[in-house]
């Protein structure tokens, strides 16, 4: 198993974390990585708006009004969570595969792996757990800012390198 690198993009499109585990992809300067993160953020938004009409998720506001049309006051006072198109999840290229996991709050985890890497979503879920434990629970961490948490680094190393 080869995991090339991990990028974390905050909900505004800024790069807050980048880590290389294996060499193999081009070495990018931190400036290039920032551009890449911003570009990906924009493309992700475009791919969400390109959903074909046949598979476009039905918005809960219309489905609620259709199913519970009599209790109109209740349905407006308790809005359901909107179903949104997911946006780019897996990007395949001849040298690598990029898997994107977006949390409900808009943070994106990008994992660059080999093209034939199995079970990437499991790895991403585990990384999300590490992020929740060591970054979000860190009292000195400011949200949406670059991540500098040593425990997160060591946790990632232990998890990704051991599996490798």
């Amino acid at each position, binding site marked *: 198993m080869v995991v090339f690198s991990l990028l974390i993009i905050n909900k505004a499109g800024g790069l807050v974390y980048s880590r290389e585990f294996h060499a193999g992809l081009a070495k990018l300067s931190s400036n290039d990585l920032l551009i890449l993160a911003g570009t990906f953020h924009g493309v992700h938004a475009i*791919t969400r*708006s*390109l959903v074909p009409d046949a598979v476009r998720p039905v918005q809960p506001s219309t489905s609620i009004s259709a199913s519970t049309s009599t209790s109109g006051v209740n349905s407006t006072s308790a809005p359901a969570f909107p179903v949104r198109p997911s946006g780019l999840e897996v990007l395949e290229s001849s040298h690598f595969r990029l898997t994107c996991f977006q949390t409900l709050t808009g943070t994106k985890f990008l994992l660059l792996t080999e093209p034939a890497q199995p079970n990437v979503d499991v790895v991403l879920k585990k990384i999300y757990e590490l992020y929740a434990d060591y970054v979000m629970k860190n009292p000195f961490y400011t949200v949406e800012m670059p991540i500098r948490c040593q425990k997160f680094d060591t946790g990632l190393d232990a998890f990704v390198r051991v599996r490798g």
Partner: protein
Amino acid sequence: MVVYSFYIFDRHTECIYSRRWNPRPASSSSKASRPQSDIIANSGEPAPPQRKGLSREDDAKLIFGAIFSLRKLVQRLGGEDNHFLSYRTGEYKLHYYETPTRMKFVMVTDTKSNNLRVALHQIWANLYVEYVVKNPLSPIEHAGGVGVANELFEQGLERFVATVLA
């Protein structure tokens, strides 16, 4: 496998052919009245009501913007010889093939299909080259899509999607 749409972009970034298929008529009555497919050159009807302010031309431009950026991103990360193949979202999958002359072939399908790079290559070699490039009446540059949407090409594409990609 379900094919939703197919686009060709020329090397001047212009969409010279686009086609949509509506595989299963949606249950809602508003969608049922929509035409089966259309070509960008003669699309005069208004966009479907639920797409606020987005016409088909806008869709083609958005797709071009997305694949252009992703192509650059992939080349920057993996080197010059790294090709962008496809991407998948929760709802659809977009396949990409670029010819040596920088023509870009894009197909949007459901998420369960395998990589269609070979199929797009076949469309280019067996349909586009045969019926568009070799057509003596067709211009060299297809500005505005002139010369691409001829009868033989459309029939061939229809048959290809119906048989090979069914």
